[in-house]
């Protein structure tokens, strides 16, 4: 099992803590980094010791939202191959459709179901688009 580098951008401290505990206690092979906001996103991204294989982006976040972050990642030469997932509590079809059209590689709905997480990551890295919205 190879190590997956994951960057989670989330302004809700509870959600960050859940993810941190998940990765510490239940999931193996995930190297998690987290931003509590999207300020200086690219700058901070470039400073990371390991380039993320997977981005987990909250959508409703400041100063720039998930869609803007997605665009910046896609435009950055170093992250062309990175996979970007939306982690959102907005699961209405219209909202999911917007995410798909924006070009996300997949989506995970809150509440997070720990059992599926590593599997989802693996499939996304393999090139599959995974929408785990339940």
């Amino acid at each position, binding site marked *: 099992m190879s190590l997956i580098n994951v960057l989670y951008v989330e302004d809700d401290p509870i959600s960050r803590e*859940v993810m941190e505990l998940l990765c510490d206690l239940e999931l193996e092979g995930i190297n998690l980094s987290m931003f509590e906001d999207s300020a200086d996103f690219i700058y901070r991204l470039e400073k990371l010791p390991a380039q993320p294989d997977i981005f987990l982006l909250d959508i409703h976040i400041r100063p720039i939202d998930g869609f803007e972050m997605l665009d910046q990642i896609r435009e950055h030469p170093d992250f062309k191959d990175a996979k970007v997932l939306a982690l959102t*509590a907005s699961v209405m079809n219209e909202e999911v459709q917007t995410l798909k059209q924006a070009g996300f590689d997949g989506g995970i709905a809150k509440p997070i179901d720990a059992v599926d997480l590593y599997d989802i990551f693996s499939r996304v890295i393999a090139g599959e688009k995974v929408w785990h919205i339940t």
Partner: protein
Amino acid sequence: MQADSTKVRRFSVNVKLLSLTFAAIMIVATVQTFLNIRYARQRNQVDEERRLSALNDDFTSQVQLLGKTAAALSDGFANRADIKRYVTTQDRWSLLAELVPILTTLKADYDAPSLYILNPDGSVFLRTDDPNIYGDSFVYRRNTLTDVITTQEIVTGIELDPNRLGVRAIAPMFQDDDLIGLVEVDLDFNQLFFETLKARNNADYAVWLTRGATTQIPWLSYEETSVLSSSQLVYLTGTYEARLPIADTVYDGVLASGNPRTQFVVSNGDDLAVWIAPIKDYNDRTIGIIEIARSRSEALSALRNDQYKILLGAGFSLLLALVFAGAFTHLIVLRPLKHLTAVAQQQSQGDLTARVEWLPHDEFGQLGTAFNQMTAQLARLIESLEQRVKERTRDLDVASQVSRQITRVLDLDELLQHLANLTREGFDLLNVSLFLHESTTRTFKLVASSGKAAEIMLNVGMQWRSEDPGLVALAARLNTLQVVNNILESDVSLGNPLLPDTASEAALPIRFGKLLIGMLHLHSAHTDYFTDEHVDVLTTLSDQIAIALRNAQLFSAAQEAVQEAERANRVKSQFLAAMSHELRTPLNGILNFTRFVSSGMLGSVNEKQVDVLTKVSASGKHLLALINDVLDISKIESGSLSLFVENDIDLAHEINEVVATGRALIENKPVELHLILDENLPLVRGDRRRLRQIVMNLVSNACKFTEEGQITVTARHTENNQILVSVQDTGPGITPDHGESIFEVFTQTEVGLRHGEGTGLGLPISRRLAEAHDGQLWFESIPGQGSIFFVSIPVPRVPVTPAPAAENQESIL
């Protein structure tokens, strides 16, 4: 094209008239000519017959004359004393000397006269032509002689023999009453007679003897032959030799009857009239035939000349008649007709001022006058018709514009002003005012006005009550149309000082059914402006305005309702989206933290704590399910549920997973869960998550309500190309009084309620989701024994091929 056909028509009238005249004259001339010719021919034949008959009489009288001459001569000689003496004395030569000079005298007047002195027995005493011959019996004269000797009277008659045609007379000679001798005088027909006949009458002739007459003893043959026939005829003398083409029967007839006949024949191109008469001897016996043929060619040619003259005359008359007819038709018929035609053409091209100016004192003059009157009438009619059409068109145009405006403009104030403008402009009115009734104040208030006084009246806010004076108030009071076509003669019209030019006015009620809702007040600058036709259209207009008012009111009410509904829906959607979002985030913490603790990863937990934490987790999950269901049902109810449609959904796979989940739910119950799947179930098209949600709902319900026994899940491909999934349980079943109510939102059975689980939304959502996939969801149940739920999902007609990258399509339920 039109000019050509007109020309042809005019020409044809001319030709017809002339042809008719020509034909009539032709017929008359032909008939007359024919009759003339016929009559002339008949007359010519009668003439010829008469002429020939005269010739015959001539011939007969010549014969008689000749006979009398011969008789007189013979009698004279028989009574001469010297001749008697010489006979008595038998002094032949003296007698000869005496007779020769007489004979010479006779020869001067007659061809070949013969003078014989016979003995009483008939033998020859002296032949003057040959005195040396005497004493022979002369038997060929025996009959004649016998008669003379017997009767002792003179006998005279035609004598024919092969050599001559003439008469013979034999006279008895007496001496003291004793027959002493006979004197025979033969006189031939003078050749001159026939020549004269021919020259004078242009006639040829022929004399035919019967065969008997050609013999040397003709008298005998007379006795022997009782019936004479044409076959016995032998040509004796005449001016033509060939027999004419006359039938033998004609000769037979003449010979048998002894009566003459006339024949008309053509011989060698000559037209002949032929007289065929019998020749009779002194005893009235027919001994031959004389045939006189007279050429008719001259007469006929004269006749033909007459015919030509007649034809020429007819032709000339015809020509004259044609000229007269042409002139007549031209002068009397065609000229007036042409004139009429020209005028009619002018009129047909739209010039109704054209009039027939040439009016002779005849039928054409009357026709022209009538035509002029008709034209004038027509012009008046067309004028009035044009006027009426113009008015009607304008009226209808206004009405249709109003209708269009009614459907287009839905803002009431704008619409009413528009209608007022349209009505005024369309009907050329001075002013149009529209009042609406306000039931609270019982007043009619001006809401729209168009025209000279409109602005002032609107600014003033003109209003009145039905008990006020004036035409419009009267009309409102009576709830009927009121018209004053001349306000000077009316005691109702008040006269609006703002509209001093008003000459007539009309007031029309605007009604919903019988309810008066407003008034239309119209002012015109012309007297008698509001005719019945105008009023009809205006009434229709006021009805239209009523409809417009109703529509506008309904529309504004409906629009408000729609706007309200849309706003509420928007708020609801926003609320639901926010609620979902805001609830899911804390649930993320609750569910995950609970699991972290209960799993013992964060430190040891006792059994009691695990039990509590499990209940926390379950409650959290229930809450999440509730959130999802509420979200779903609200989307379904607002019609905004959307499916993520994929083409290659393997329902078997989904059912397997659902059943696996279901097994976890019955772990602690004596319930068996069976799964029976058809092999090779076809792929279906739909929303994978939603299809799974349906099956999950049915299986979890079965697991929830079945305390013991078994649950059987099946899936098969039906004959009508559907996948039919059934979930059968041995639970409590559903009583009939619940029936379809289990598909109603927030409805749970008592059992369901007792369970304290579920939202009451699962089945309604599932059914709607099945329907969204063009499928159905239904159940059968026996209370106390169990239930079986069915869901059918149609299989696409074209077998779906698994798409490598199933691009989701969205469809809205």
